[in-house]
């Protein structure tokens, strides 16, 4: 049987405000436990929540960026449940009238096709505290520093059909919130968390299958693995004559499997009702216009511009546009080095693998955009070859200064003086007289490989500095001659 996978995602993004959504406590990550938990965050009686304007602005920014209708009349509701990391006994959230309505986001798949994913809604709510189960025998430790951190929960339509699409969507949301400056996107610190709703159905069937929700998957890699293992579990279950039960599951990366969370017999009943502590929040048109005017160029626009302005492929353009820092870096390299395709290649390949190796982001790149741009100029004007450029790049990464300084200090300037190259070639050919004989005796078909040997020897003899095109040309005439 052919199965179709259906995935919808709920992404919680912590908004990058200084203070909490309803109190004046700081939101700094990693502070001493409970030092950022005020009376409001602790749920003490008699306190009143007051909404943070910046949280509203950030949510609106997101809504405008995904072409969504902005809820101009907002109501906050209480979502009631008991858990020790939620001291009030309810979470202030939004139910019927969320701040961001239906919108959409385009994702680029690996083959370059663009797919539109629907966003059902996004609403403001407060984060809960953290429970630490490990370190206390018979007790759970509660840290309420995170309680009250503003969250924007972004709910997608069930529009994704594979784990890869789901990851592409999360990456697109991740890039977008970082472009907008509304979330730092740090998944390891829980700034962006993802719940995956997964179901399968026989290909061609219209109704959705029963879905399971995988809670809190916190890296791109785990999202893909968790979805794939859950899909496999559901298909095997159904093919063995079983039935998928709607439930919440957790992904265990060590075993690469999902397992059911221990859950109560009865379904959750959150008994939402409007929070009487908060008046309706009205968003004026003037405010919308103001926020709209602040929107930066967003990834899809940037991708299109890179394609048109620089003649890049869809794939290259979307990789480079995927983060604001990388896009800025790339544009700076182009503005200095001139050649956009060469710049794209160096940023994506050499710089990309260097950053990967060092495990740092592009804003901490050991080679600045100015340095890389300066090096591309030297490739363009034939001062260095592409091969030598890799050495120069490495030297720049080791803090040896600008490309020009490295080339000067290490004497890497390409030799383009044909007299000097000929001298090197003559010496090399004399040292390999036997091979020269063989080459001249060989037929055309075998010569190709043998010619490569001479080129290699010549480059080696010149320490890589001889201009490769000239070496080729001169060698050919000398061998034929």
């Amino acid at each position, binding site marked *: 049987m052919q199965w179709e996978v259906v995935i919808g995602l709920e992404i919680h993004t912590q908004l990058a*405000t*200084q*203070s909490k959504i309803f*109190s*004046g*406590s*700081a939101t700094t990550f990693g502070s*001493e*436990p*409970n*030092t*950022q*938990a*005020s*009376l409001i965050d*602790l749920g003490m009686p008699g306190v009143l929540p*007051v*909404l*943070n*304007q*910046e*949280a*509203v602005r950030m949510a609106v920014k997101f809504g405008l960026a995904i072409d969504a209708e902005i809820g101009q009349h907002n*109501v906050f509701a209480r979502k*009631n449940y*008991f*858990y*020790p990391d939620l001291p009030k*006994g309810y979470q202030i959230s939004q139910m019927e009238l969320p701040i961001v309505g239906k919108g959409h986001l385009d994702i680029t798949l690996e083959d370059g096709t663009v797919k539109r994913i629907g966003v059902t809604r996004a609403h403001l709510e407060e984060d809960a505290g953290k*429970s*630490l*189960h490990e370190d*206390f025998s*018979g*007790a*759970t*430790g*509660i*840290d*309420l520093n995170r309680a009250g951190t503003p969250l924007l929960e972004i709910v997608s339509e069930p529009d994704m059909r594979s784990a890869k699409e789901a990851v592409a969507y999360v990456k697109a949301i991740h890039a977008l919130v970082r472009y907008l400056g509304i979330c730092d996107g740090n998944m390891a610190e829980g700034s962006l968390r993802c719940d995956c709703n997964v179901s399968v159905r026989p290909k061609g069937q219209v109704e959705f299958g029963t879905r399971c929700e995988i809670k809190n998957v916190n890296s791109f890699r785990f999202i893909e693995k968790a979805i794939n293992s859950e899909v496999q579990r559901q298909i095997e279950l159904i093919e063995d004559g079983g039935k998928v039960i709607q439930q919440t599951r957790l992904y265990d990366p060590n075993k690469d499997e999902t397992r059911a*969370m*221990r*859950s109560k017999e*009865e379904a959750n*009943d959150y*008994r939402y009702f*409007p929070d*009487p502590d*908060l*008046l*309706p*929040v*009205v968003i004026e048109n003037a405010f919308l216009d103001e926020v709209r005017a602040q929107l930066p160029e967003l990834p899809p626009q940037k991708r299109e511009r890179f394609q048109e302005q620089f003649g890049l492929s869809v794939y290259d353009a979307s990789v480079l546009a995927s983060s604001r820092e990388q896009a800025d870096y790339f544009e700076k390299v182009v503005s200095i080095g001139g050649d956009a395709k060469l710049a794209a290649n160096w940023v994506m390949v050499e710089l990309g693998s260097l950053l990967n190796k060092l495990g740092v982001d592009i804003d901490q790149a050991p080679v600045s955009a100015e340095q890389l741009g300066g090096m591309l100029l030297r490739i363009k004007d034939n001062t260095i070859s592409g091969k030598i450029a890799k050495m120069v790049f490495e030297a720049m990464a080791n803090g040896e200064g600008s490309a020009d300084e490295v080339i000067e200090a290490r004497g890497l300037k390409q030799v383009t003086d044909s007299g000097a190259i000929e001298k090197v070639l003559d010496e090399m050919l004399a040292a390999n007289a036997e091979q020269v004989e063989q080459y001249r005796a060989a037929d055309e078909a075998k010569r190709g490989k043998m010619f490569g040997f001479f080129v290699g020897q010549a480059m080696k003899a010149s320490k890589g500095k001889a201009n490769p095109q000239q070496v080729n040309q001169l060698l050919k005439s000398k061998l034929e001659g």
Partner: protein
Amino acid sequence: MALERSDVEKIAHLARLGLVEADLPRTTEALNSILGLVDLMQAVDTSGIEPLAHPLEANQRLRADAVTERNHREAYQSIAPAVENGLYLVPKVID
């Protein structure tokens, strides 16, 4: 819609209220009389009327995004039944 005894038990559980056996009939009756009032109100034609989110005719004032709270952990934790390493301790919960 009249509540059964089992509904009341479920609601009490959700609200973490420990109702004693003897209170159940009385509570069921009281809740049903409240719901009776709701039923009466349901009869009113409210089509075209916006749901009321708050009785006050006012909109929420927003505050500037500024940190105004300082750390008072010692004071707050002095009334907690159990703390350790700055954490509030509660009976073990595992979900």
